[in-house]
């Protein structure tokens, strides 16, 4: 019973309910979490026989000096810095528009959200076809406007940009849904009062809707950044199982895959996973720290 104190019998009973979840979690979340850190410190490790010859920082030192890993970090950072601001800004604009136009909102929301339910690999293949130099849809459209065709997937200057377009296209829907949920939670009376006081639409947004939407915006920024830090499927499908021309689209996740699965350097891959984790964790903490600070400045709005 809910209000009685725990005793041995009630604990045993609860254990029956908890065992399935705890067992799987221990074996496939807790243990691998520990093992991920352990493995990143193994050197000369044979995972099949579980032979460890030495421990140390060698894997991280390797990453520190590996130009390919530097390229992966650089590409990932560019991708996040390109995709995140544009996706968040666009989805905010679209959500505000949909919020204004109720009779179209249902249908349009359905359409904008479609990429979320779509297999990334499958739609990545479609984008590969759209980006093609000869016969691709995008270049055909560019041609109609009298622009030169671009070899999106084979020109290292454009390959990362092509990946960004796919990531933006995919990320919009989720953010729009979350922004709409955030907008729904805002009490419309604040905006009404401000309107009566003569505030125009821009003033209403910057002084009322914007600040009230801030918690959701922070969440969306973190979500979008984290998602784009971990891009892999899109690259694999877009370049049919490679990392683009001259590794132009080598992301950190793709580096991990390549080291682990293709080159069989398990411990280096594990170390790169830890670095990725540190990036993502650091970014999340930083964003929330900035948010707390800002919230403090605004006088405890939430």
């Amino acid at each position, binding site marked *: 019973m809910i209000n009685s104190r725990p005793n041995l019998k009630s604990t045993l009973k609860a254990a029956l*309910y908890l065992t*399935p979840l705890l067992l799987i979690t221990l074996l496939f979340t807790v243990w691998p979490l520990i093992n991920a850190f352990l493995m990143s410190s193994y050197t000369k490790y044979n995972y099949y026989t579980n032979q460890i010859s030495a421990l140390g920082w060698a894997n991280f030192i390797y990453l520190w000096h590996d130009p390919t890993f530097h390229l992966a970090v650089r590409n990932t950072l560019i991708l996040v810095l390109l995709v995140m601001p544009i996706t968040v800004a666009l989805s905010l604009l679209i959500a505000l528009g949909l919020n204004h136009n109720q009779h179209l909102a249902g249908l349009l929301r359905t359409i904008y959200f479609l990429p979320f339910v779509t297999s990334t690999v*499958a*739609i990545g293949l479609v984008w590969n076809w*759209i980006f093609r130099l000869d*016969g691709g849809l995008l270049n055909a459209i560019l041609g109609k406007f009298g622009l030169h065709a671009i070899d999106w997937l084979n020109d290292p200057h454009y390959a990362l940009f092509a990946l960004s377009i796919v990531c933006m296209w995919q990320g919009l829907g989720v953010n729009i849904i979350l922004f709409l949920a955030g907008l729904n939670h805002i009490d419309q009376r604040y905006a009404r009062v401000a309107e009566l006081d003569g505030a125009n639409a821009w003033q209403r947004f910057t002084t009322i809707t914007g600040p009230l939407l801030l918690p959701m915006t922070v969440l969306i920024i973190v979500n979008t950044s984290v998602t784009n830090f971990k891009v892999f499927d899109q690259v694999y499908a877009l370049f049919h199982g490679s990392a683009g021309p001259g590794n132009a689209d080598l992301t950190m996740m793709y580096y991990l895959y390549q080291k682990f699965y293709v080159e069989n350097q398990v411990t280096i891959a594990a170390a790169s*996973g830890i670095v990725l984790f540190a990036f993502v964790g650091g970014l999340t903490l930083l964003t929330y720290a900035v948010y707390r600070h800002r919230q403090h400045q605004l006088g405890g709005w939430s």
Partner: protein
Amino acid sequence: MMNRLLNGLRTFCLLLGAALMLLPFIWMLLTSLQPASTTLSVPTNWLPQALQWGNYLNVWQAAPFARYCLNSLLVTSVTTIGQLLTSILAAFAFTHLQFYGRRVLFGLLLALMLVPGELLLIPNFVTLAHLHWINTYAALVVPWLASIFMFITLHQAFRAQPKTLYYAAHIDGASDWQYLWHVLVPTNRPIITAVALLQVIGSWNAFMWPLIVTNDDRLRTLPVGLMAFTSDQGTNYPLLMAATVCVILPLILLYFGLQKYLILGMTTSPAKGKSL
């Protein structure tokens, strides 16, 4: 006047955006119905002259897509049902039963939510290698039978349930087990449907894990099979697009039917749009 113009402009932009979002889907459908010979030449007709439904038949004959489809169905359903079971049981224990260490254990599980699944990829592979599970259905399913996200979401929902129902059921002589399956689960059906749907999407579209733990053609799920098909077919785009439609379509139909649950799940779950 000015306002009207602004409204019109806004609607136009929204519609244009929606058209751009739809464009890849339309292009995929149109290409899948083009005759296979037009590949790699600049399409003079964007609309196919004669609809080549035969492409779809060819896809099913060219690769074991029926097998991939069956594997995807199996993996998705077992994973989702398994996660529902483990999460419902645990969420019930945490909200309705008393036991030692309840708060500490809940705190630990909550903390695990911060662990990115990608970090666990390699150590989990190693665990499975030691269990000799690589290239088995177990590898595709067992590691995913528990989901902290689903557990936390259901915990939230079960906690909000008025306890008077629980006491009333007890007075009427219902056991905890009966209360769970005859009262708690039916009354929380919308949120349970929502989390299940999110998981179905995640499992159906999962790519990196099945790619790594299987290399046997008979065990491939649809996304992995699709990529294998791509390396066989090269750039026969009409055929590729027909295969792509087969992978994407089931979930789109499911989405059209159950959209409101999906949005419920997206906005109430602490996962906020992450799947898997």
